């Protein structure tokens, strides 16, 4: 039995990495989505638009720039899935949740910053996504993406 394991060490290591990547990745993703949805519901009252907005004279007390960002990477399992998908073409489902999570998290962090500073709304939201490091499919690379959200937080003069 031990001989079999040592003889096929590379194969077993690969399968182990796959299993670890899959289980940890799935658990982390579920937990993250749960927290995203909870916080989204909490912050839903904070108005967020990507229009510039026009304000009447004297309506605005203060305005400032807020931003939020997140760098995420895929797990071993999903990366393999993406590599395989690369061959056949089509929808790369393995990356859908990754980007979705990163972007929603970035917006949430921006909103949290705005709320902490007492803003009533965020106008002119801009979103950006960029890859950090080398391409995700190359070997030995730390492939990851950054989602950035920024906008202008506005504090109104409220009676």
């Amino acid at each position, binding site marked *: 039995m031990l*001989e079999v394991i040592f003889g096929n060490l*590379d194969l077993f290591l690969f399968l182990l990495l796959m299993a670890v990547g899959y289980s940890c990745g799935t658990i982390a993703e579920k937990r993250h989505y749960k927290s995203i949805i909870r916080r989204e519901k909490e912050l839903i009252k904070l108005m967020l638009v990507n229009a510039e907005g026009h304000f009447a004279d004297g309506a605005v007390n203060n305005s400032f720039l807020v931003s939020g960002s997140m760098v995420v990477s895929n797990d071993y399992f999903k990366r393999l*899935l993406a*590599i395989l998908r690369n061959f056949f073409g089509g*929808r790369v489902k*393995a990356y859908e949740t990754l980007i979705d999570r990163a972007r929603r998290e970035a917006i949430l962090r921006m909103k949290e910053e705005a709320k902490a500073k007492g803003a009533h709304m965020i106008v002119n939201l801009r979103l950006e996504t960029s890859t950090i490091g080398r391409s995700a499919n190359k070997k030995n690379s730390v492939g990851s993406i950054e989602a950035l959200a920024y906008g202008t937080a506005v504090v109104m003069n409220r009676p």
Partner: protein
Amino acid sequence: MKFTPKHIDENVNVSKTHPLGELAWLVGGMLLLALVFYLVLGVTADLAVAKIPIKAEVWLGEHFVASFEANEDEALRRRLQRLLDNLPADSPLHQYTFTVQLVKNEEANALALPGGHIVVFSGLVEQAESENELAMVLAHELGHFAHRDHLKRLGRGLGLTVAAILVFGEDSAISRLMSNLFLATESGYSRQQESDADRFGLELLVNSFGHAGGATDFFARVVKKAGRRVPYLLASHPHPEDRIEELQSLIRENGYPVEKSAPLGDDLLSETEPEQEAETAVDQ
């Protein structure tokens, strides 16, 4: 303007398929593709190899294995000649001009290279105890030439590796995985090819020496050295124990006489020891 916040539970940006299901589909498709490719390539390689004239192979061998031509080994040459003289008159092997080299290497092994080059590692000669045993190994290699196994192996292994690199790129993890797999499965001859070469070698041995003594000695020693069977999932080499059994049943079936094998000649014994500095390193 009225701002009405809405929260929806549906996520339109994410597909509903389960990742494991997707993996199954992808891997299944990949395996199917690889299987089809392997079969097509295998069949074409085998068909093409049978059609390649021996002259073309000799030309190929001259251009790619040129480094082997310089130092032919006289003592091994005489032994090979004895086998060649006993080939049937219509054997395709007569079209080759064989060369045989002794290469300094501890491993007890011999190789058949394209163009009629046989390489014998000095470890084999050192361990060999009889003329018959050595003749069996040489005859076995001649069997690979007779069946054109060396060309088939080259065709398949190279074809698959090149295909994997073309499809996935040189650097990607998957093509390294694939080429490792192919190297493991294609670097040796197949079980069928080995036993065909054994059969050929046995016949030639009996034709040359008049009996089948010493035919299984080499494998018996390999078994003793290697010990128990170590299973490797990716390997397809026949185990020496199986080959011994097969050879013995062949000897019984054909009623070949088994006599005492002749001890190794002095000309070879003296050669394996002092002269070896002359042997140059050969790319393996």
